């Protein structure tokens, strides 16, 4: 059964913005428990594809399957309950709430009791414990009570990761997790992503610009260009692919 091998599958997925086909007839299969990277030059449609996978955008045509079920057009707030969590390229947190509260809210969404409106939120013991565990995992335990907006950029990226780890989804869609991070912080974050993926039987899909990162951690790489899937394969296959080199370097260097 295909449903077992591929966790995520898109069938002829297209998204048009007016005349622009940002994502054009893409068939993408993402294997269970792998780390799948999507790369491509600027404007290749990576983030749009991502938004289609996570339900933030509705496709113009085509379908998205998750675990063999059609999830096209599911409301955004259902996605995490299905098991799909996503992080954002531009840090997207609750700026005036504390780090801990940010993570706690993320885990609270999965619990019952969201509508108990007179008991204290700290009574939801499971959320509290989960939030502390995640805060420790992403290394923000010491800063748990400072407002999210006061965090340096690198820590905000960690918080972003923490907020999608807290509900414990089966798929993590990470949109440029290292964007804007200081170079020395990147390996730490990558190690973390690898750990999470390895010990939790999770599937990770990430968009990334940092080639060192992509080549070192991915199991499979999909290269996109001009809204289409250009190539797919292991890091070795991708590095030696002529078409990919052309897309990245431009036709000027063609021999």
């Amino acid at each position, binding site marked *: 059964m295909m449903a077992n091998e591929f966790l995520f599958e898109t069938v002829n997925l297209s998204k048009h913005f007016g005349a622009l086909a940002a994502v054009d007839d893409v068939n993408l299969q993402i294997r269970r428990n792998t780390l799948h990277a999507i790369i491509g030059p600027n404007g290749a449609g990576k983030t749009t594809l991502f938004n289609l996978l996570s339900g933030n955008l509705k496709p113009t045509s085509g379908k998205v399957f998750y675990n063999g079920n059609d999830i096209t057009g599911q409301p955004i707030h259902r996605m995490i309950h299905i098991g799909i969590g996503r992080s954002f390229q531009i840090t997207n*947190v609750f700026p005036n*709430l504390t780090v801990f509260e940010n993570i706690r809210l993320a885990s609270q969404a999965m619990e019952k009791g969201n509508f108990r*409106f007179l008991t*204290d939120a*700290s009574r939801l013991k499971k959320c509290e414990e989960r939030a502390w565990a995640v805060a420790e995992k992403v290394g923000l335990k010491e800063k748990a009570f400072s407002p999210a907006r006061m965090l340096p950029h690198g820590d905000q990226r960690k918080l972003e990761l923490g907020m999608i780890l807290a509900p414990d989804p089966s798929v993590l869609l990470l949109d440029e997790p290292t964007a804007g991070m200081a170079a020395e912080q990147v390996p730490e974050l990558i190690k973390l992503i690898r750990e999470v993926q390895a010990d939790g039987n999770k599937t990770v899909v990430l968009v990334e610009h940092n080639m060192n990162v992509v080549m070192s951690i991915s199991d499979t790489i999909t290269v996109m260009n001009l809204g289409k899937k250009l190539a797919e394969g292991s890091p070795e296959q991708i590095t030696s692919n002529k078409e990919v080199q052309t897309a990245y370097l431009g036709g000027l260097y063609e021999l």
Partner: protein
Amino acid sequence: MNKPRVSFFREYRTILIFFLVMLVLPFIIGLFEGSTPELVWNNQGTYSKFIQGLLIEIFILALFAMSYDLLFGITGLLSFGHAMFFASAAYATGMLLKFTSFPFWVVLVLIFVLSVAQALLFSLVLPRVKGITFALVTLGMASVFHIVVTSTDLSKYTGSDVGLQGYPVPAFFNASAEKLRFYLIALFILVVTYILYKSFVKSPTGRVCVAIRENEGRAMMLGFNTANFKILAMIISSFTAAVAGTLHALYQPAIIPSIADLGFTVTGLLIVLIGGVGTLSGAIIGAFVYKLLDFGLRRFIGEGASFFLGAVYVVFVLFIPYGIVGTWMVRRLGWNQACKQGWQRLLRVFKSPPKD
């Protein structure tokens, strides 16, 4: 690592002190004018009664402003139709008392139903419009209500421009005979509402409402169906405003249509801004400042009071944009800094915009 849990009395220390002070205030004022506590208890002391009357109005305003703060400051929904919740309950109380012979508890139940229905009416447009558009849609709905209330065709029922008068108030809530009792009821309702609101903000539901204010898109991504939370906040807010409206109807001898217009919503907004947006306690403090200023200026200046009131609000917004409670909470700024920033904001108003 968890924050230690604090006891009820410690947590609500300030509001409980406020409650006690307000409880003894009529008697203390009575002592100043030479009436013994016993006389005050029997609704005698003139000056004490006068202060009680002023405070009742403040409590009602505070209740109204607090319900607005729940919507605007906590959940982040800017509504320009909030006065409708208040006014419709006031009118409903008056009309039900005047034209029907229902027992008072039935009237209260009907008002509860009415307030929920109105919240649901506002919620109809919630998923479709956001931000300022939502504010305008709510303004439209409330304006319809205001027009209906003031229309001459219905003057038999609503009293039109003159207002609704001559409805019988249940003896227990008769403020002219039993002012102290009414004062205590209003005070009690205000304090209880404040405590309930505070615990709402700390509850799982309240946390999600705050998250919606901060970043609704992300709250949705986290897996919360934000529409439900907004509707719930709307219902709670609407009901509180309705309670305030009912108290208003019981206390005032007549219900005038000005409580249904935009000006009254803006009063609520101003009170919240003066006190501090999203602080809840700011609504109480703001109501005191607003009413006392309004009352004092009108008394000493007369007609020109509105001008000075306006000036005071401008100064408030420029110099303490976080409001009284909000500024108290972010004391790190310090007064020097606050004054300097205020001046800069004031100067910016008069300076020509920088050329590109």
